[in-house]
Structure formats: C-alpha cells, structure tokens
C-alpha cells in the first residue's frame, strides 16, 4: 500500500464543478463550466459522477446543485478559500491550492476557528514558533500514516493545545496534554503542522 497521499485530477475536477456551481448561484451550463474549469473530458466525467452521487441534477446541458450538493460545495468552498489564504500567508508555494484544499478537507478541523485565526494573522507552522509560544494544532499535513500515528501517539493531534519548549534547527520540543508531557518532533515534521497561535 503506497503511503503517499494521492490527489487525482478526477477528484479535483468534481470539486471544481461543485465550487463553480456555488459561485454561480447553484446553476450553470456544462459549456460554461468547461469554459471556466477547462479539460472538457474531465468536466463531463465529473458531472456524470456528481449526478450519480446525487450532488447535481442535469437537464440537457444545464446542471444545478441538489441540497446535498450545495452543502458539499459550501464545505469545499470554505476549504479552498482557507487553503488559498494559508498558501498566501503561511505555507508559501510549497504545495498547490488543490493539494492543500484536499489535505485540509479530510482533517477534522475547526474551520470557523481557523478562518478567524487567519483573519487575525494567527495561523502559523509549528516550526515557526519560538520557545514559550502556546498554540492549538489545527492540521497535520504529514503524508505517511506511520508518522501520523506516532504524532498522535505522542499527543500531538488536531485540537490539542501545545506549548513550544524549545526549538533548534533540527528539532522542536513541545509540551502536549494535561501532564505537561514533552515530545521531540523533527523540524521537517514541524513544518507540516499548522497551528493557531494563542
């Protein structure tokens, strides 16, 4: 089983169609969607799949969001916005908007809190924090499940409040949990942990 995260073009096209429809009051023609998104085959395939999943309704060339589709599209829209802001403010150009959006979508994070944090410019990477800083973990973008399992095992998980005890070039030591337990995290991993500074 490959451990690396996989983001398919098909999945992204589906999300793009949903987002596009939401931006156009829930209704558009396939032709217009293709014009906006590009990749005719991908869009047509995405529409067919979304229809079979009950997320869009199709009548000839016109497509519109179902209630379920609107709900999903709103979620995706928030994630895309969040990802774009994150990329702009925190992550630089290391990963694409789509990748970040997908990564974030599947994390159980407090989106509203995150957006609020972004607005207050309080979102950061764990690796950026100095000793003594308090923060709450909101997302972990580690691609390998074994590393994720280990992070959770040492108490660093989304929602957990942490304190940075020390930081060197190669290592961040954090205090996590009630008992002030310490965990040593490689800087390469700390660069993939998104936090809201408190």
């Amino acid at each position: 089983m490959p451990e690396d995260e996989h983001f398919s073009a098909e999945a992204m096209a589906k999300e793009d169609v949903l987002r596009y429809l939401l931006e156009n009051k829930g209704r558009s023609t396939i032709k217009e969607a293709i014009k906006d998104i590009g990749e005719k085959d991908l869009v047509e395939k995405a529409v067919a799949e979304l229809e079979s999943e009950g997320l869009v309704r199709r009548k000839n060339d016109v497509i519109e969001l179902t209630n379920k589709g609107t709900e999903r599209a709103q979620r995706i829209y928030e994630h895309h916005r969040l990802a774009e802001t994150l990329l702009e403010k925190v992550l630089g150009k290391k990963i694409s908007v789509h990748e970040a959006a997908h990564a974030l979508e599947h994390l159980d994070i407090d989106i509203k809190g995150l957006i609020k944090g972004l607005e207050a410019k309080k979102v950061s990477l764990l690796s950026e924090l100095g000793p003594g800083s308090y923060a709450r973990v909101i997302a972990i973008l580690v691609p390998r499940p074994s590393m994720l399992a280990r992070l959770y095992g040492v108490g660093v998980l989304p929602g957990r409040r942490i304190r940075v005890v020390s930081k060197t070039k190669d290592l961040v030591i954090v205090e996590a949990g009630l008992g002030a337990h310490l965990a040593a995290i490689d800087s390469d991993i700390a660069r993939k942990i998104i936090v809201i500074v408190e």
Partner: protein
Amino acid sequence: MKRVILVGQPNVGKSSLLNALTGANVRVANYPGTTVDIYRAKAVLNGEEYEFIDTPGVYNLYPSSLEEEITERIILGESYDFAVVLVDATAFERGLLLAITLIELGVPLIVAVNFWEEAEHKGIRIDYAGLEKELGVPVVRINPVKRGRLEEFIKRIGEARKGRLEIRYDDHIEAAILRAINCIPEGTRLSRRGLAVRLIEGDPLVYEKYHCREAEEAIAELKASGHNPQLDIETTRAGYALQIASKYSRILVAPRRNRLDELLLSNPYIGMAASASIVLGLIAVTVITGGKIIDYLDLILSPSVERVIGFLASSGFAGYALAKSIEALYAQYIAALPYVFIFYLLLVLLEDSGLLGRMVAWLHGFTKKIGLYSKAIIPVLLGLGCSVPATTSTRILPGKKQRILAIAALAFVPCSSRASIIFGVAGRELGAWAPMLIYLLGFIIALIVVKVLASILGAQEEAIIIEDLPPLRRPLLRNVASKAWLRLEDFIKIVTPLVVAGAIIYAALDYTGLATKSLKILAPPARVLHLPPAAMIPLVYGFLQKDLVIAMLAAVLGTTSFSTVLTHKQILIFTMASTYQVPCIIALGAMIRELGLKDAIKLFIILDLIGFGITALYANLPLPP
C-alpha cells in the same frame, strides 16, 4: 490457565506491573522468527493461574519499528484471553488512544492507570468511574512500583471484557468499512468491524492476514475521489480519544514544569556536552567497576580453571576441545560479562530516569546530519560493552536501513573484548596515547562509513524523529536490577553456544596443526600489513574467539613483551587490524539473525574490507617504525 498481554506506551510501567504481579519468576524468550525479547511470567491470582506476556512499548498501532510490529502481531495473532492496557495518568489521552484502538479491535481488556499519584500531584483529576462507564471496560488505578492498589487490580482482573465504545466515521469511510468487512470471516476472535477499519486504514499487518481485494478497491476509489482514508480514520479515532480525555479529566492548577530540564533541552550545546559527559561517565564507571570485578574474579578463579584446562588439554582431542571451550567461556564470562552487566544496569538507569530520551533529542541535530536516527546511540553505547546485544538492540530503530547503519557503526566501536586488545597490546606497549588514537580514529571511521552508507541506501528519510520524552523520574533500583538481569540472561543464552562453537572450531584447527599450516595463505595479507606472518594467526583465528587474541599472540610470538619482537608501528597495525572489523563469529551470527544471511554477509565483507583497507593504508604510510 488464562493468558494476558500487557500493552502500553514505552515507560508506562509494564515491566514493573509484571514484576509486581509475578515476582522474580520472569522468563525471556524471542518472539518466533525475530530477536525481539518477550517477557513472560506466571502467577496465581484469585485462585486462578495466569500467564502474563509483556509486549514491547508502542505509541499507536501502526508500527514504526520491529519491536512495535511484534506488539501488533501479538495483539492480532496470538492466543490470549484479554489485555491489560496500561495508561500513564500524566499523559492520559495518549494511553487512551491505544485503549480505544484495542477496544475497536474487540480485544477484551482492563485499563490500568499508572502514575495516578504523580498526576494528582500535578493537579490532574480523572473521573475513573465515568471513564469506565464510557469505555465499557474496567478502569483501575495501580502503582506497581510501590505495589499500591494491586489488590483492587487483582480483584477486578477477572472483569476484563470487550468495550462498548463504537467509533463512527464519515459516511464514505463507513461505506468502505462495510465492503471490507466481507473479507473477515465470521467467528473471528477479534471484531470483524475493527479489523475492517484497520484494512481501510491500510494496516499492513491486517492486510498480510486477510489480503482483502475489496478493501484495496474501496481505498483506491476513496483516494480517486480525493479522500485519504488513513488520515480520516486516524484523525477521527484520535479525536474520540481527545474528546473522552477532555470529558473525564481536568487540571486544577497550571502544570508544574521542570525548568532545569527545559533549559537543558533548549540548548543544543548544553545537550551535547551533557550527552558527552553521560557517555564518558558510563564508560568510566563500566571500565573502572567492571575492571575491579574482573580482577577480583580472576584472582579467585583463574588458578583452579587453569588447572582444569591444563588437565583436559592433555587428554586427546575431546579433552583439548573441552579445554578450549572452558577457556573461551571463562574468558567470555569473566572478561565480558561484568562489563556487559554494568553497562545494562547503567543503560536501564538512563532509560528509567528519562535521561536516555533526552540524549536522543540532544544528539538528533548531529546524527541527522550523517543520516542516522539518534536512537542509534543505544546500540552504540551497548556496543562499547559487547557487539552482540548491541546488534540485536538495533530492532528499536525504524526500518532496516537504519539498522544496517547502526550495525555498520558497531564494527568501529570497540567492544570490551577489543578494548582488552587495545589496552593490553597497544596501551601496555605504547602508552595511553595509542588507545586514545585508536578510539578516536574508530569514531571518525564510523561517522564516515555511516554517512556514506546512508547516502547509498537513502536512509536519511528514516532519520526523522518523533519521540516521547518521558518525565525525569527517580528510577527504582529493584526494577533497574531486575531489567538488567533479564537482559543479561538473554545475552548469555545467545552468546554461550556461539562461544563454544567458535572454541571447538579453533581447537580443531590448532590440534591438527592447520592453524600453523595456514601461514602460507596468510603470508600475502601479512606482507600488505607489514606484520610477521605468525601475527596473522591471532588476527584471523581471533575471529573465532576474540578474548583469546592476546594469549594467541603471546603464543605465536613466544613472548608477552610484544615490543621486543614487533616495532611500535607493527603493534599499532596489529591493534588496528584487530579492532576495525566485525569482531567475532558471534557478532556475525547476531548480524545474520538481524539482517538475514545475504545482507549480513554483504555488510560483513564491506566492513572488514574497509577496516583492512584503513589499516593497510596506515601500514604503508612512510612513517618511522
């Protein structure tokens, strides 16, 4: 008889509980097909016989090392009645995550909360009754070190049962679980749903058992639609642990912190200096104390042993082989065992006090540069005592590549047997500078070899650490001694047959005169090293029994005053050639057990060629003799 597995995070007190419940009646055995130690012990509790199996500590059920893999294999495949999941009250949600993972798998269990007094001292309050109700399994407090509340634990041990907590995932994951569940046959001991969750999570060990195509397809489809089932499942489960922990625990005061600890951790230079002091202190205590014990034992035992050996040696080949075996065992046990035991004691002391974890953090910046996981400091430290347990201890490292790197370093880290050659030949004849030079050069060679090998193998990725730093605690000497003793037993079990085998082979070569006859074959390498051909005999046959090298050298040279027949440069060459190599057949045996025959032999040839090459290079430098 009921079989019970003890499961928990590292340093949570599993061994202490095992000792408290069963006394000194602990047996150590390797997990089948591996070299991972599993401790077992029996006890009669409430009139019923129990066998307790202590598993290696795990952070979570997604193995990052061979040890962690074995724990999961035991949980998934071994036959047992229930599990005792130990939870550290000061790191409550971490242990809870493990307990929840086992509950989801349908493992009948009892949760034993350790360090609860320390947690209370820190102002942490846990609602044990509420937690018990939520999880649906007994939750009891224990203090195995002081034997506190053990009666309650023993009284309730029979109540271990499957929990009733069910984790619900997002719809897409639930749909995939429903598909995967078809692969799990009815009547499976563990929960079919729990195993199906692990299939969707991509757990390699569950896949190995069920080869579920439906799960593979479900995962592929989820990924194609942009989901990451592994991440979803892990995060949801951890979210449950966090939520339950928040619901049933609270903190009354701000956590008390160890300022000195934090200061030491925050400065890499202080950390490096502290690590260096610990290592030097460890070596000094081992060498001084071990040396005194060895001298004392030797004084008492050697006259009788020599008499027995002398008598047996003149009684035909069988007697000769027996004499050589006794001589080798005596050398091994008297020369190496005290060092190894003291080393084990100090190492367990470092482990139990939490200092070892800090050394791993301190050294990370340095070891990462050469591509080595900083936990490799443990086998390296052990290697200063004996390469055999050091080789087996590499199983704590993540991945085979890291294990290869650590084992490679051991070829240039002198064990106590090689130390006796360094001090007994180079040190005695040339002065203190010579051992220091050999140790320093060995250290530099080890660094270069590890760095080059790490680049060739692409091992740098495995040098990334995520480690728990257990709180600094005062270790209990009884526990330390008991752990060290168990490790020593394991060492004796591994080493004894190999020592005897090596001694018999050498006895046969020596008795038949083949050792001397092989001088012709040994002449070319002797020329390269600028050594008299006779000096090659201890170099080559020392591989069978390292502790006899000095005695062999004295025998072939006809004197114990080596500088009368060898130049200073030759003495240094001989010592270097004896030091920079896989030291003996026993260490090679351990390498084969750990890496497999093919990889072990390849590595053995590479390392010995490097050692020989460096010695030959020095031998051929135009330096004064």
